């Protein structure tokens, strides 16, 4: 189903002007939230069924509830704006087109959980998003939507912006905390989870940009409305970044029952030059390749699970038949070897060996021994790596080989 909730103001308002945002219903949700007790706001988000939009799909309300329960202060709300997954550019559109909505979502999260400080961790390459957010924070603070005694209440919330320096792993939540704390960007072992030991060791809500942008409309229209959009297992509007060999690459909003074929043919105008789909990478480099015969699955969790994939951040990269798949796989293997932080053994060593083997295969040397080694590397990185980077570093390679008819097994 086509929706226009998250993108309703993108392209309609001037992202540099607070007045424009307010004139289009901005901060109405915050006003409404402040009239309720914080527990009620958490309940509403829980009842909505909203799950995180960064890729892990954790229920947002459950996360908020866990932080609200913590008595230690200060608590933090962190907006994960380190959008680095290859093929994902939806958060960028939100931050550049409707930056105040992200701030409003953060303020509501802070009010609901008792947090007093907020951090936005913006991907280093997103200079425009940074500038716009910077100006938005200043204007919102000046106007009393952020800062001390927000809108005359006794709720205070200060927002800081921090820029990343280009490391993919810093989008992993605990590595992101380490980075803000001034340390080497490496993930921490979980548990403890951020809800109890997050930024500076304090209870922390960390949500993706798109997750936070879902909050104001949810609070304004209620959980029941939210649940009425899309499939029951994952309700609400979702942004999809469609790129690659399509006529109209871009960010599209739909509910999660939309199928891959609809996204490619209806939303993105079909495969370019009338070509044919060879493979579709769903969920970015950490995602899974799906073959042309599986395009009718819905983009929901259960739908994509049937073909061994998951929606992830909502990236859809289309590879047409003119592209050499070996080049694509080599590029992905190189990406992971380059971005591995080097902390845990399976990923530090596995991504390097995976790159060497894929390099050899791409040059035409297909040896049985290498396929076996790739499968062992994939299983070991998936099962034993410390964070999501290593756990997913072999996904695209193995599924890509499968789509190419190379007879790889899931284990």
């Amino acid at each position, binding site marked *: 189903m086509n929706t226009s909730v998250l993108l309703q103001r993108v392209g309609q308002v001037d992202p540099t002007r607070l007045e424009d945002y307010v004139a289009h219903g901005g901060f109405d949700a915050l006003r409404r939230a402040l009239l309720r007790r914080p527990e009620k706001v958490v309940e509403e988000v829980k009842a909505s069924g909203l799950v995180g939009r960064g890729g892990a799909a954790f229920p947002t309300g459950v996360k908020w509830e866990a932080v609200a329960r913590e008595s230690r202060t200060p608590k933090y709300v962190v907006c994960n704006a380190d959008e680095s997954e290859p093929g994902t550019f939806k958060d960028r559109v939100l931050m550049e087109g409707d930056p105040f909505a992200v701030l409003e979502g953060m303020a509501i999260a802070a009010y609901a959980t008792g947090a007093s400080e907020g951090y936005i961790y913006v991907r280093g390459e997103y200079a425009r998003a940074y500038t716009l957010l910077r100006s938005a924070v200043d204007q919102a603070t000046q106007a009393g939507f952020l800062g001390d005694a927000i809108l005359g209440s006794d709720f205070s919330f200060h927002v800081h912006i921090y820029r990343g320096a280009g490391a993919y792993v810093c989008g992993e939540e605990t590595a992101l905390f380490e980075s803000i704390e001034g340390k080497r960007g490496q993930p921490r072992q979980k548990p403890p989870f951020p809800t109890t030991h997050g930024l500076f060791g304090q209870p922390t809500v960390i949500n993706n940009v798109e997750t936070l942008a879902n909050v104001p409309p949810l609070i304004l229209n209620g959980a029941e409305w939210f649940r009425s959009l899309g499939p029951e297992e994952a309700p609400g509007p979702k942004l999809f970044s469609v790129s690659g060999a399509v006529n109209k690459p871009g960010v599209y909003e739909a509910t999660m029952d939309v199928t891959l074929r609809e996204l490619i043919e209806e939303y993105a105008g079909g495969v370019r030059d009338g070509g044919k789909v060879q493979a579709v990478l769903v969920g970015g480099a950490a995602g899974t390749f799906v073959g042309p015969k599986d395009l009718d699955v819905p983009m929901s969790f259960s739908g994509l699970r049937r073909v061994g994939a998951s929606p992830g951040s909502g990236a859809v990269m289309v590879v047409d038949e003119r592209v050499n798949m070996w080049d694509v796989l080599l590029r992905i293997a190189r990406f992971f070897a380059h971005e591995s932080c080097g902390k*845990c053994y*399976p990923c*530090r*060593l596995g991504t*390097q060996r995976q790159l*060497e083997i894929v390099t050899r295969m791409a040059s035409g040397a297909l040896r049985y021994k290498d396929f076996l080694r790739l499968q062992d590397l994939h299983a070991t990185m998936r*099962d*034993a*790596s410390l964070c999501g980077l290593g756990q997913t570093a072999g996904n695209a390679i193995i599924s890509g080989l499968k789509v190419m008819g190379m007879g790889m097994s899931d284990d």
Partner: protein
Amino acid sequence: MHVIIDGQRVPVSPEMTILEAAEQVGIHIPRLCVHESLTPQALCRLCVVEWEGARTLVPACVARVQDRAVIHTQSERVRRARRTILELLASTVDLSEAPELLAYAEEVGADLERFSDGERLTFPVYDDNPFYVRDYNKCVLCGRCVQACGDDMQFTYALTISGRGFHSRVDTFYHLPMPQTTCVFCGNCVAVCPTGALKAKEELLLEEGLSPEAIWQRKREEKRAWYKER
């Protein structure tokens, strides 16, 4: 409160790790980076075990027990991960002075030559001070020395990790020779090194066949030269 480890019922207390619980009934879980005097980092992943119901394997050194958890320390999934990690390790490091790792490798049937066609980093041996020698060709990057030098023991912060991914390594800030760093030559890093990458100079010279007298004489000269240089 109890857990089931490899089919055995093990009584536990809530703060216990899986590693400790297993130890109680004589089940030894392979491990490398964990050390009794240091905060566990859970980065070598050799101690991973299968916890029924968990999506991934979990590191036994930090995972706390939960009542009635069912844990397997020798399942095929665990052995495959352990085997592959050891095979990967052997493809980058000289494990000749790490007999425990060689024993683990034999136990899980690891072929230590399996990835030997891959790139291998080589380093010069750093012999830049009178106290200890650093041979990073033997370094497994367990990070113990960095921890001992930093928050866990000495608060000296002479050691750090430089580079990233496969190219990570233990280093000094700006790659300075050790005497020019904050190092106080406490020796804690040498004490916690599991593979002989860090070695007391006496030990090395004894291995090379020098007599104790000759070693002391040599170290005295080195110290003099070092002070003179400064």
